[in-house]
């Protein structure tokens, strides 16, 4: 087995290379080739999965080493992969969901002039994502980490002719790079403290290494900064809504199911490093993002942007869970979220497809349920799952997290999480109603999408619907499976009784749905007029509390002005000016001296006399 697990990442890589160089010639087969490689990877992952569960629980690890990669002094990094339950889970999600989205893309991207290129990038993305989750050390993980960033960049800017797309791509890369760099500093600090970056070396000794708690907190927070960037948490979330400029399958795969969850994976993977303080930071940021994303989503008219904020919010929940120590719950939510969120993205893609390509404005949709019944139906499943209402998967994944907050005594956080849950139900219902219910408000001729798109959606819908079974109870299947990697959950002994909590959650979610129905679904409220009346509030939500605007209007101009000042003021003016000035001064001095050379012989004689007198004087003085 160990040798074959190399095939998991390498197959997509091979697909990527083939498509990169021969994509044009392969024509529409490029897509199928790409899908096949990912599918095959999925199959091998499954095989690995079965191999893994056959192992005894304590030793559930598959590792393989290719070669020593970087060696310098006592510091070694190897190209080495590790499959433990945590990465196994991620593997299955990445290859599974990835495969489905690849298949879907065959339909969605049909006729694009850079069809082959698209699949090359997608395959490359899957490769890097697999490297990220399979790496056995932080450096290799960082390779995947940056690699997915690159693919995200390439894919967001896939239609680079659009200014917005190229801008968004660049923005995504740079913003995440800020987090990545902090993470890199964290890695440097880890090398400084532990002398290694292998998971085995760092994570096992983290508790007993004698490194002070303060330092551990710094390391953990720096790593978490990387996660903030990648997973679009406050305050580095601004790239995610813009990233929706990319083709929709990209949004589904990268910006919903896989890449953005890498941050969660990182935190869970490194949980041994997280001190209580660091965990509080994670929980607070996660919760804030959950609430923020939910609120901001309510203000969006663009279906994809609304979903993007939703993703941010959901990721916030995951971090919240991780911050509370409920790592397995975080991963469980990650898994089911991958199902329903990518489902909804694919759904929105299907809608766009049905509306002729690029229409994302929900204000000109409505009533599509009738025109695109399959898409609509599956979207309902997704939305249901997300809203956290039973019996869909979202309920089983999210509710335990909220309850766990209460159970571990974080009452204030629990209240906020509940609030976020209310808004989650609200925004997702809003999207659903605006898009699929009521009357069609547009002027296009919507049509249902082809099977090649619908079938993957169907599979995902099944996952979204029944994924909850995996997490049916505390320490459900996923949690139990993950235990060797994440540790067991604490018994939630405090707070309100479990059934009450569940009831509260359901009631709140229902309230959210009901509110949404009232405003956007029932047709009794003129929501356009309502928006006009509360314009400042709406604007605030639509702009995501103006965080992005603050960056764009304060930070960026400051940087550019600084650059301009340094460039023309300091560099050309002062530094180069000094250099040129020195040159000019030299030349000017020469020019002045030239005037002494009058051409008149008596001047020269005077100079000689000056010289004679000076020589005699010097000799006399220095004797």
């Amino acid at each position, binding site marked *: 087995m160990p040798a074959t697990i190399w095939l998991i990442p390498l197959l997509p890589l091979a697909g990527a290379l083939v498509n990169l160089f021969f994509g044009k010639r392969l024509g529409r087969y490029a897509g199928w080739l790409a899908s096949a490689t990912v599918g095959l990877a999925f199959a091998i992952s499954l095989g690995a999965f079965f191999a893994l569960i056959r192992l005894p629980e304590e030793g559930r690890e598959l590792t393989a080493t290719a070669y020593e990669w970087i060696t310098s002094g006592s510091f070694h990094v190897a190209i080495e992969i590790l499959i433990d339950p945590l990465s196994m889970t991620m593997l299955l999600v990445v290859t599974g969901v990835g495969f489905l989205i690849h298949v879907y893309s065959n339909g969605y991207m049909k006729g694009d002039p850079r069809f082959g290129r698209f699949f090359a990038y997608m395959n490359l993305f899957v490769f890097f994502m697999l490297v990220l989750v399979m790496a056995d050390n932080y450096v290799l993980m960082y390779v995947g980490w940056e690699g997915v960033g690159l693919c995200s960049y390439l894919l967001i800017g896939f239609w680079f002719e659009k200014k917005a797309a190229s801008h968004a791509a660049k923005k995504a890369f740079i913003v995440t790079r800020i987090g990545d760099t902090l993470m890199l500093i964290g890695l440097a600090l880890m090398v400084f403290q532990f002398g290694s970056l292998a998971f085995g070396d760092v994570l096992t000794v983290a508790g007993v290494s004698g490194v002070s708690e303060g330092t551990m907190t710094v390391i953990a927070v720096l790593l978490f900064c990387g996660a903030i960037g990648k997973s679009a948490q406050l305050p580095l979330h601004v790239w995610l809504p813009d990233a929706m400029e990319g083709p929709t399958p990209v949004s589904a795969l990268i910006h919903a199911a896989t890449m953005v969850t890498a941050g969660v994976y990182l935190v869970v993977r490194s949980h041994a490093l997280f001190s209580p303080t660091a965990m509080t930071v994670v929980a607070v940021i996660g919760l804030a993002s959950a609430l923020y994303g939910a609120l901001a989503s309510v203000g969006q008219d663009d279906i994809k942007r609304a979903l993007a904020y939703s993703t941010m919010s959901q990721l916030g929940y995951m971090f919240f869970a991780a911050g509370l120590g409920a790592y397995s719950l975080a991963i469980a939510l990650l898994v089911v979220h991958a199902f329903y969120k990518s489902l909804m993205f694919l759904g929105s893609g299907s809608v766009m497809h049905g509306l002729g390509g690029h229409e994302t404005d929900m204000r000109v949709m409505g009533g599509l349920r009738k025109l695109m019944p399959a898409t609509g139906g599956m979207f309902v499943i997704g939305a249901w799952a997300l809203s956290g209402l039973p019996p869909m998967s979202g309920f089983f994944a999210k509710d335990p997290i909220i309850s766990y907050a209460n159970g571990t005594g974080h009452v204030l956080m629990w209240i906020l999480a509940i609030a976020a849950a209310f808004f989650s139900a609200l925004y997702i219902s809003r999207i659903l109603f605006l898009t699929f219910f009521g009357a069609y408000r547009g002027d296009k001729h919507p049509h249902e999408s082809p099977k090649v798109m619908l079938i993957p959606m169907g599979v995902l819908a099944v996952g979204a619907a029944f994924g909850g079974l995996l997490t049916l109870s505390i320490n459900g299947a996923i949690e139990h499976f993950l235990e060797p990697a994440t540790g067991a959950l604490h018994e939630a002994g405090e707070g309100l009784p479990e059934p009450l909590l569940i009831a509260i959650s359901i009631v709140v979610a229902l309230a959210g749905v009901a509110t949404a129905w009232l405003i956007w679904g029932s047709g009794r409220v003129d929501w356009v007029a309502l928006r006009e009346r509360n314009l400042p509030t709406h604007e605030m939500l639509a702009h995501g509390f103006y965080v992005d605007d603050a960056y764009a209007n304060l930070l960026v101009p400051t940087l550019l002005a600084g650059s301009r000042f340094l460039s023309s003021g300091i560099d050309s003016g002062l530094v180069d000016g000094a250099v040129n000035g020195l040159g000019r001064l030299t030349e000017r001095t020469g020019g002045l001296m030239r005037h002494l050379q009058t*051409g008149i012989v*008596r001047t020269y004689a005077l100079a000689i006399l000056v010289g004679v007198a000076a020589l005699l004087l010097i000799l006399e003085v220095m004797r």
Partner: protein
Amino acid sequence: MTTPIGYYLVLSGILFSIGTVGVLVRRNALVIFMSIELQLNAVNLSLIAFSRQLGDLQGQVLAFFSMVVAAAEVVVGLAIIVAIFRRRRTANVDESNLLKG
């Protein structure tokens, strides 16, 4: 002979300086040249005075050579001045200032 040799040497120095001033302030090439001759003669005075002081004849021989050289120099110098004068119609050295800077 009771005049201190130092007197002659100082006199020689004074004459040399006067010659120097002449070179610097006069503009007529001939007068400048004459001033140089004055300088050479001042040096000769020094040489002969030293010769007397040291009690050997080398100084006088040196003065003799100085005169020979001066004679040759005068020929060349006057020839140059004449040649220049032929073309420029002036012996004013200040007007020979095409080359400068």
